[in-house]
């Protein structure tokens, strides 16, 4: 009886091009909108996970391996698997429905979330979120 599809919840995308990828809910639309008459949410997810970094790597190599590629998408609740994990990265100002309207805005928003995700990855927190789901 507790609502769990809330912002900052980590979810796994189940369908579409990004199936199997982890994402975080930025904004949820429980009752839908005029265009999408079903419960859906705006998620920011990882398109390409950062590679494994070993101690032997030089600084340049670590920087290259720690890169994260992101995507922003509106996803139906039915196509998500919620998890018990959360990721509190502040993306509300960057990731908006408005950002999905045009290509440049989308790319700009993705770049900004990439920066924030990479920053979070480098601190070593939320390790589950940045590891690839094996299936």
């Amino acid at each position, binding site marked *: *009886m*507790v*609502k*769990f*599809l809330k912002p900052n919840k980590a979810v796994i995308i189940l369908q579409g091009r990004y199936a199997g990828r982890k994402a975080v809910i930025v904004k949820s639309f*429980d009752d839908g909108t005029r265009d999408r008459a079903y*419960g859906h949410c705006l998620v920011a997810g990882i398109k390409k996970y950062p590679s494994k970094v070993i101690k032997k790597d030089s600084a340049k190599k670590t920087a290259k391996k720690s890169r994260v590629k992101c995507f922003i998408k509106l996803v139906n*609740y*039915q196509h998500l*698997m*919620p998890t*018990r994990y959360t990721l509190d990265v502040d993306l509300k100002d960057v990731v908006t429905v408005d950002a999905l309207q045009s290509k440049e805005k989308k790319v700009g928003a993705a770049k900004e979330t990439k920066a924030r995700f990479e920053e979070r990855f480098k601190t070593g927190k939320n390790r589950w979120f940045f590891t690839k789901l094996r299936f």
Partner: protein
Amino acid sequence: MVAAKKTKKTHESINNRLALVMKSGRYTLGYKTVLKSLRNSKGKLVIIANNCPPLRKSEIEYYAMLAKVGVHHYNGNNVDLGTACGKYFRVCCLSIIDPGDSDIIKSMPSDH
């Protein structure tokens, strides 16, 4: 075995309570609507038949854990659960949204 063998009396009482819910309360039958009811936090109790596929059972239990909703594993298969609901089809899982006059929600989670 972890759970003790369910006695006939408790099994009948679950059936009685379920019948009362069917008559006076609101419920949904079926996997898709059970997940929907858990997502929009309308579901109050989920009942799963014993021959539910294990992956589906785990998935429903995980959703219920996130939503803090009780899950009852019905002592019978989907045919029996359908009969208990008074339906002529099989029911693998159901979600009770409003128990009506029944006390199934108050008594079941402690029973399990």
